[in-house]
Structures are given as C-alpha cells and as structure tokens.
C-alpha cells in the first residue's frame, strides 16, 4: 500500500496554450499506456469505494481501474460498459472533481486518482485498436421503443434497451445524431468522430437512427404509438436559448451560445468557406455567463481569430459553475474574466452591428434561492466595454415544440416535463422523459443517469406492464 501512494498523479500531456488557442484539435492528448498503468496502480481498491457513490451511473470504478493496472484493457472497457455506454465522452466532459474524483480517499490528502483520464484512456484504446466485439444481446422481445433526441440521455436509453432485446429507433431533429455532444461541445473538447463512433456502435447493435425527424412537427408522440411503438422516451434537451432582455439584443453580432456553437460545431463554420455556413469572426469578443457553455464559446472565439476574448459574469469567481478544467484551460489560453459585472445594454452602429456593451458593477448580497450570494447592482457604476461579437451563454429553457403538441403530458411551472425522479415516468401512459427537458440545464452524465433509470423502468413496463 505504502509503495502505491508514492506514485504521483500522472499528468496528461496537453497542447501548449498559445498553439492550441489557434486550432480546433483536442486540447488534452491522452495518457500513454505506461502512464495509465502507473495511474491505475495509485488506486487503493477501497472495500467501500466512495468514488462509485459519486458516479451518477454507478460505474464499478475500482473494478475497471484494477483491470487497467493488470493491463487487461478489453476487460476494463467491458467493466465500464456494464454501466456506461459512452465512456470516451464521459472521460472528457464529466465534472469528475465534483463526482468520482471528489470522493476519492486519496484525494483527501493529496491528488485523487485520475479516474476521468483513465476512463478516457481505456475507451480510446478500445475505439482505436480494440477487438470491436459486441456485448451480448438478449433474445428479441418484439417490443418497439421510440427515443426522441440523440443526446446523452437518448443514447443511453437506446444502448440499454437494445441489449435487452427491444427494437429501438432514435428520432433526431438535426441532420446529424449526438445532440449537444455534436452541436454544443466544441471539437477541441470532444472530437466529433468520437461521438459518431459511439453512435455507430449503437447502430451495430441494431439501433435505428432517424435524422431530420422533428417530433412535434414531422411526427407527433401519439402518432408514434399509432405506428406501433410500445414506449416513447423524451430526451430532447433544454433547447430554448435565454437572452438577457436588455436593449440592443437584436443587433447583428449578438448570438445565443446555441447559435454560435451550432454554427461552429455542427455546421463547421470555422472551416468556412470550405463549409458553406458563415459565422461572425470577432476580434473583440464578450461572452456573457460563466458555465461550461460560456467557456466553450469564449475559447471558440479565440480559435476563430479573436484578439480579446472576455467573459462577463454577474457573480464572483467562487460562484463560477463551469468545470474547473474548463476555467483553467480558458485562462491559460488568454480568456479574461470580468466578475461582478452585469450587462445592461448593447450599443450598435448604423449597420445595426454590435459595437459595445454597457456593464454595471455588482456586489454580493444575501444568498438567493440557489444558495449563492445574490449579486446586487452598484448604483452609478456603468462602464462600457467595446466588442464586435457578443455571445449570450446564460442558460437555456425548455423548448416547447414537442410538449405543446403532446396531449396529456404534465409540465411544471417552468414548462419542463414532470417526470418521476426514480423512473422517469411522465403523466402520459407509455411515455418517459429525462435529461435537461426534465431537470433544466445540467450535465451530460446526469442526463445519462436519468436515461439509465428510465431504460430500466421502460424494460419493466415492456415486460410487466405500466
């Protein structure tokens, strides 16, 4: 035991900040096999592993790490797959410091085991040089399940239910599957080939993926039942961008983060004009908000030639909701932070293009409903920041396209779908929901956790009834 603790946490090599801030290649380069095996040996193999409690999908973390330490990589990925169909994704985008790694016993005194990096290592190894052998599938049940949305929760539901012998079709509104993993998270944080290979894996298992299918428009939930589906899972995400409701918000050059990232990621506007979709390349960029989406936007702007990329956030550094690694990477690349600043107006020129933002300084007052100290404006503290591109990344609300066209689906007072926390069951018979359309904007892994619970409940229903 004592010997194991002497190994230092293995550092994952990364592209240098000044180089990577100008390209869209992935920032961390992955652990070498030697480093991964060394890192795996740091795990104490706790009898009651706290890390597993911290994982929303309950991956057997000591189990898969032990297999890496023994260089049994195929066994290790199989161990993860038992609970998580998207390990290459989760290894990259989970907030490990708040979950598994945050609970790691070694982390109490020193650096926790790099669980996320190990998960990523073994998933990448399988994808690049694995056997391609598929996990065993149960005998066909003859039941059909429709999964609406191909983001993290939909992919999880599809992966779970296809292995249990059901027929599964995923309906995706965009022309490519992956949901937020494809339109939202940038290439430099999650290469799209990884997402497409995860989807291809599900297709190999027998899942059908129907793109360009807008449930609520092209087809309704009730029509899916008429077409013979036995159960419907709704995992459409929270696809309604929030704006700030301040003057000047419709100026050209002011985007929702959804639009900015969709243009860049899904439509590949960063490769314009090789790809036909244009995007505004600001030299002087302001991003409003400080979540992961804001970090993604500010860093994307740098890669598209911004000389200044600034994050404006109305609370202080302590309240920043983004993953630690994202804030760290953004700062390394030169993103500047304006804390305790709230936008009150955008200014434009005669062409209707944004030229600046008027900000108001804030101070922290008493805690609000979220438990965070409420920012209070300081009278007369207005100041102006120049910008030629502004990106609003202050969260998303529930997109009503599906919910408004589905009878019998109860919503909460903010129009999110009401679903049972333990099962994902909605008020409508045969319909489950999970992910951001239930909880509001959250993380990939929480959406996957909801998908896992719903898949179990759907399987019970298809076996035993509602």
């Amino acid at each position, binding site marked *: 035991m004592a010997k194991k603790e002497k190994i230092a946490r293995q550092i994952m090599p990364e592209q240098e900040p000044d180089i990577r801030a100008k390209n869209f290649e992935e920032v961390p380069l992955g652990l070498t096999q030697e480093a991964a095996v060394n890192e795996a040996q740091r795990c104490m193999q706790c009898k009651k592993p706290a890390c597993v409690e911290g994982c929303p999908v309950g991956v057997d973390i000591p189990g898969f790490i032990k297999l890496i330490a023994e260089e049994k990589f195929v066994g290790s990925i199989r161990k993860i797959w038992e609970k998580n169909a998207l390990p290459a994704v989760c290894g990259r985008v989970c907030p490990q410091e708040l979950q598994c790694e945050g609970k790691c016993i070694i982390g109490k005194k020193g650096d926790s085991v790099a669980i996320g990096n190990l998960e990523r290592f073994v998933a990448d190894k399988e994808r690049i040089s694995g056997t391609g052998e598929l996990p065993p599938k149960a005998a066909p049940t003859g039941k059909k399940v429709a999964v609406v949305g191909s983001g993290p929760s939909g992919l999880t539901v599809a992966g779970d239910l296809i292995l249990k012998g059901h027929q599964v079709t995923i309906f995706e509104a965009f*022309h490519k599957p992956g949901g937020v993993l494809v339109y939202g998270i940038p290439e430099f944080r999650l290469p799209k080939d990884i997402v497409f290979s995860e989807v291809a894996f599900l297709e190999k298992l027998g899942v059908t993926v129907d793109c*360009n*299918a*807008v449930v609520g428009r092209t087809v309704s939930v009730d029509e899916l039942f008429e077409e013979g589906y036995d159960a419907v899972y709704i995992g459409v995400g929270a696809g309604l961008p929030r*704006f700030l409701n301040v003057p000047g918000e*419709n100026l*050209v050059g002011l985007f929702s983060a*959804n639009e900015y990232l969709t243009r860049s990621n899904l439509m590949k506007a960063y490769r314009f004009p090789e790809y036909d979709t244009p995007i505004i390349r600001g030299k002087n960029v302001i991003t409003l908000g400080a979540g992961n989406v804001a970090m993604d936007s500010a860093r994307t702007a740098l890669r598209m030639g911004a000389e200044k990329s600034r994050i404006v956030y109305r609370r202080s550094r302590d309240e920043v909701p983004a993953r630690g690694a994202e804030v760290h990477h953004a700062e390394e690349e030169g993103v500047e932070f304006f804390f305790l600043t709230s936008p009150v107006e955008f200014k434009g020129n005669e*062409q209707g293009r944004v030229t600046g933002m008027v900000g108001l300084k804030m101070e922290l007052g008493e805690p609000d409903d979220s438990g965070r100290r409420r920012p209070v404006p300081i009278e007369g503290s207005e100041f102006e920041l120049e910008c030629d591109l502004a990106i609003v990344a202050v969260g998303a609300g529930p997109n*009503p396209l599906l919910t408004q066209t589905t009878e019998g689906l109860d919503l909460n007072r903010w129009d999110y779908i009401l679903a049972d926390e333990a099962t994902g069951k909605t008020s409508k018979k045969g319909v489950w929901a999970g992910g951001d359309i239930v909880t509001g904007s959250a993380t990939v892994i929480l959406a996957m956790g909801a998908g896992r619970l719903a898949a179990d409940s759907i399987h019970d229903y298809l076996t035993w009834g509602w």
Partner: protein
Amino acid sequence: MFEIVEREEMTGGTVIRNEIEAPLIARKAKPGQFVILKANETGERIPLTMADTDPEKGTITIIYMVVGKSTAIFRNLKVGDAYQDIIGPLGAPTHLEKVGKVVCVGGGTGIAVLHPITRALKEIGNDVTCIVGARSKDILILEDEMKKASNDLRICTDDGSYGHHGFVTDVLKEVLEKGDIKLAVAIGPVPMMKFVSKMTKEYNVKTMVSLNPIMVDGTGMCGCCRVSVGGETKFACVDGPEFDGHKVDYDELMLRLLAYREDETRSLEESGLKL
C-alpha cells in the same frame, strides 16, 4: 436523401422550381409552413416556405431564386439528384378564416409562398383580389396559377413591360379605396412588405406578412431568426413565420438579413459558381 422528381427553370434560370420526394413532410404540411434544406455534406441549412405539397404523391414543391452559393448548388441538382437533408414541416401554419374580401399582395419569389395561401383563402369562401409584382415581365412567376387561385388578379411591373407600370402599392391603394377589405396578406421582399403594411395601416386593414430571416435549426433552438414584433422579440421559426404586418420592425429585419453579406459574396466567388 430527398430525390427531385420534377424540376423547372422558371425565368431563364434565375428562379427554379423543384418537386421533391418527402412523404413524411408532405403528409403533415399546411399552407404557410416551411422546410429547411441542405444540399450536401458541407452545405448550409436554408429555410424555404413550401410552394405546394402533394400528400398522395408524397412530394413537396419549393420555388427559389438563385441568390448565392447555396442556391447555386441547389440549381445544379437535376431530376433524380437528391438533397441530403430536408427538415419539416416547420413553423406555424397560416391562420385561415372566412372574412369576406381579402387582398393578397406578392412580390418576387414571395408569390410562390403566397400561392397556396391565396388558394386556401379562396377555397374557404373569401373573395380574393391578388396583386403581384415583378421588376419586369420576364421574371414574373406563377401568373396562370395565381389567376386560378384568386377571384381577380392584378399585375404590376417596375419597368412597365406588363400590367400596371409601377409598384404593387399603387394598385393596392385603388383596391383599399373601394373599401370593405377585411384582410391583407403580403409576402415578398422586405421593403414591399414594409410599404404594404404602412398603407394598410392607414386604412386600418389587418395585415399578415410571412418573414424569411436567416435561420440555423428552424426549431426554436438558436434564436438566429429573432424579429421584433410589437416591441417583443419573437422567433420566426416557431412563433412565425407569419406575423401581424403592422407590428414588425422591418428596418431591423433588413439589417439582420445583411449580417453575412460579405461572407456570402466571398463564398460564391471562391466556389466558382455563377448566379
């Protein structure tokens, strides 16, 4: 893939009609709704309001003017070729109601969008006067179809080569003067909709316009298509594309439509395609 089953060059190749196999969309689409089309892997998502649908045949019809790289790529698609992606039907359908006397005003390819709406308004018993305008006779589209779809068709050309010599608003004024018009529908270039709405407001005639701002997803997810209507921000893709013409901020809409003008010019030039 969405195969083109019929194709027509309408005005010497600047305006193209495509009838496209899209049975799921044709089954659901109603007048006033739009689709988003993407020609190929590197293509842009282009919103176009449908000019017609045939649920039995499983086809939709679009009519577009070649104005940039994406529509130049569309023009190169022949019968038997296919669009890689078509998404729809999107947007809210036209609110159709029997009100009595209606005037429908169309300009440019807006006439293609106006056609199914005009036809539907007449079918439910309205007395429909239609005013269509074009720069000159050779680029006027759908004359016969519009004649059939309305009770009275009036034509205007900017250069006087056909019909009334002047703008649609000249004829509109005459029609409004006669009185008793209960509803106006205007679809065409933004300045046309702006001036039609300005005039109908003077006569206190309710006016509906169909907007075509720049879009990305078309499902309310990005907010690219936001327009100011009565001082409120609306998303044309889900709240529209039709709005109260008296409340739309047309000047803002025009500026937003020019957002990528330089990029569009560059993109077309570098592609080697011609308009």
